[in-house]
């Protein structure tokens, strides 16, 4: 993965103009500053009021942390508005066309605009956080420095992810109205992230916030890279082909996705890297499961329900019912995995082999490898290769979803990868049926 060349001086030129433009509208600046200051002070009054009127120390401390996350989220969400204005707004007003006709490279325009939005949003976020800390923590006898550092780190990435998401929207939206509607696709997942963070704090598991900060770093890097790849003169100036005959165009796109796809063996050769990744998921999962059991990092109470539900699904009723239960369970997994592969960047494909491996390793640690392997023999001889193939094709869908090209064609590529998966199900579903029969009759 190489980053393109860019002249930092030129990117700084673009950034400084965008910054000046953003602060030239006094009413907007006043509104942003007022919200940034008023929300922390309002939250601080609530927390201190709770402490004054006898709220328990644990409750007050945890709520003070949750408050910090909310205080930062609101100015962070301004970044989305600013980024949409900077990209879609400029495109709508045709000023972006002028900018792209200069010797500036796409990377310089992109970096300059992203830097300007980041500078404004982060100033507001950290300004709000400082106001909040000054208003809440003095006299509380509690200052969670490590959590606030994790928050500061994840905020940078949260804002960067929103900005990069806005760029991706700007490549698909022609008007601000359309862009504002599409922005919900960014705000909603981000609000879920905020809720999970709040839940972790309320549960007293703040150590996981570092993991979240790490996740946000990866997400921001992926989205920024996608935005950079997709931000091209071609995409920005491409002629609007219009919305005539949408069903005809959609069916033609679907036909195109299924047409001229490689045969099964050729496909396996083309997808050898995702196949290797998916195949590695099983031993890695087994090792992780074994270690988790041996070190008690994951309590058996957390793993048992998963194992029990699998046993229960297979263990009730006649042998035909058992076959059907195992088969339908596996088919459901094979159908869900590609659907969420687009949203998880293919991680669901990796988990298709990693998770069974994890359970296998966990059971092996509690009993022995021979007992654990007996549980997956002989059905595993069919089921595991099928899971590796399905996992690989789902990884490919995810990889396609996070890859943008200057020439466009994202939808066509994702459809083609999905078509490969669907076509492979012709072989995979019978394989799952055979595995279910083997498991019940010989397992």
């Amino acid at each position: 993965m190489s980053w393109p060349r860019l002249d930092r001086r030129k990117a700084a030129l673009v950034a400084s103009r965008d910054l000046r433009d953003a602060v030239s509208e006094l009413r907007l600046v006043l509104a942003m500053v007022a919200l940034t200051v008023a929300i922390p002070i309002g939250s601080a009054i609530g927390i201190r009021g709770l402490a004054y009127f006898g709220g328990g120390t644990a409750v007050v401390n945890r709520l003070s942390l949750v408050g910090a996350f909310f205080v930062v989220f609101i100015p962070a969400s301004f970044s989305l508005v600013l980024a949409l204005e900077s990209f879609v707004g400029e495109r709508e007003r045709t000023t972006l066309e002028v900018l792209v006709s200069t010797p500036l490279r796409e990377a310089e325009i992109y970096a300059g605009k992203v830097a300007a939005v980041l500078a404004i949003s982060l100033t507001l976020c950290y300004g709000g956080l400082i106001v909040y800390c000054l208003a809440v923590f003095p006299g509380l006898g509690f200052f969670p420095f490590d959590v606030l550092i994790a928050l500061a780190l994840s905020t940078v990435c949260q804002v960067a992810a929103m900005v990069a998401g806005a760029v991706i929207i700007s490549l698909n939206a022609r008007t601000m109205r359309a862009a504002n509607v599409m922005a919900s696709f960014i705000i909603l997942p981000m609000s879920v992230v905020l809720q999970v963070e709040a839940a972790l704090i309320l549960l007293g598991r703040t150590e996981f916030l570092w993991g979240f900060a790490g996740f946000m770093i990866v997400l921001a890097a992926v989205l920024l890279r996608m935005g950079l790849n997709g931000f091209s003169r071609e995409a920005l100036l491409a002629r609007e082909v219009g919305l005539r005959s949408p069903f005809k165009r959609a069916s033609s796109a679907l036909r195109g996705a299924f047409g001229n796809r490689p045969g099964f063996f050729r496909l396996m050769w083309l997808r050898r890297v995702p196949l290797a990744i998916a195949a590695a998921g099983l031993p890695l999962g087994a090792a992780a499961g074994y270690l988790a059991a041996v070190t008690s990092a994951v309590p058996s109470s957390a793993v048992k329900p998963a194992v029990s539900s699998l046993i229960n699904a297979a263990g009730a009723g006649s042998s035909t019912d058992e076959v059907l239960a195992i088969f339908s369970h596996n088919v459901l997994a094979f159908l869900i995995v590609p659907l969420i592969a687009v949203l998880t960047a293919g991680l669901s494909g990796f988990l298709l082999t990693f998770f069974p491996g994890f359970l296998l390793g966990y059971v092996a640690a509690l009993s022995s490898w021979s007992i654990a392997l007996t549980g997956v023999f002989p059905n595993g001889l069919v089921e595991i290769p099928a899971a590796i193939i399905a996992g690989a094709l789902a990884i490919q869908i995810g990889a396609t979803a996070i890859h943008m090209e200057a020439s466009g064609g994202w939808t066509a590529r994702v459809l083609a990868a999905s078509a490969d998966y669907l076509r492979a199900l012709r072989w995979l579903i019978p394989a799952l049926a055979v595995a279910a029969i083997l498991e019940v009759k010989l397992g």
Partner: protein
Amino acid sequence: MLEVERLGKRYGDVLALRDLSVRVGEGACLVLLGRNGAGKTTALRCMAGVLAPSAGTVRVDGIDAVADPTAVRALVGLMPELPGLYERMSARGYLDYFGAIYGLEPAMRKRRIEGLLELFELVEAGDRWLGTFSKGMRQKVALIRATLHRPRLVLADEPTSALDPDSARRAWAYLKDLQAEGCALVICTHSMEEAEALGEQIGIMSAGRALAVGDLGELRRVSGLPTRQEVRELPTLQDIYLAVVAKDSGNHREHHELAETRSA
């Protein structure tokens, strides 16, 4: 200066431009005429190194626009049809910003900006926000921006459409001065007066292709129009344009009728 060989551009299923071949020498001017959607703007964007051609080649000063589009854009001044000005920037600030992007030194930027603001009678308005400017004033600022860095090739899409006749003549005189300094011009316009005033070479475009390219004499021959006998007057460019386009429409009609007859 500008060499375009069999240039084609496709947007998905839409063929916006096909088989365009033109050459514009140093200090020469090509005017492109054609109805809306004829492919003129796409042609300019490809010539400016902004869009990559789907077929054919574009070379500016010997530099291939596909191999090194950044270098081509540095040599070119593109003035799109819509001025695309930042509303909350002064004219001086705006021109200074683009001068800096083109790498002009601050002192030179200031000198050129003041000179051009004076030429286009914008000195007093220079510190006002561009959002307060009239359509004509915006077009003047856009023309100054496109030529501030003294490009080797100016590509202008209807550069005087919003200007009053006096300002338009001033703009033509300015473009003629640039030509005299060796700058090549490619201008898209709907104004036959402008085309006759500027164009040594004129291209008539329709449906993404050039129907005819040449000087006025060559176009007269292509059009097949006789000299107006009654008043002993040569056909005007307007007459030629309409005749060439009508001839092409006739060819299309004949082609369709022939095809329909064959299929019947």
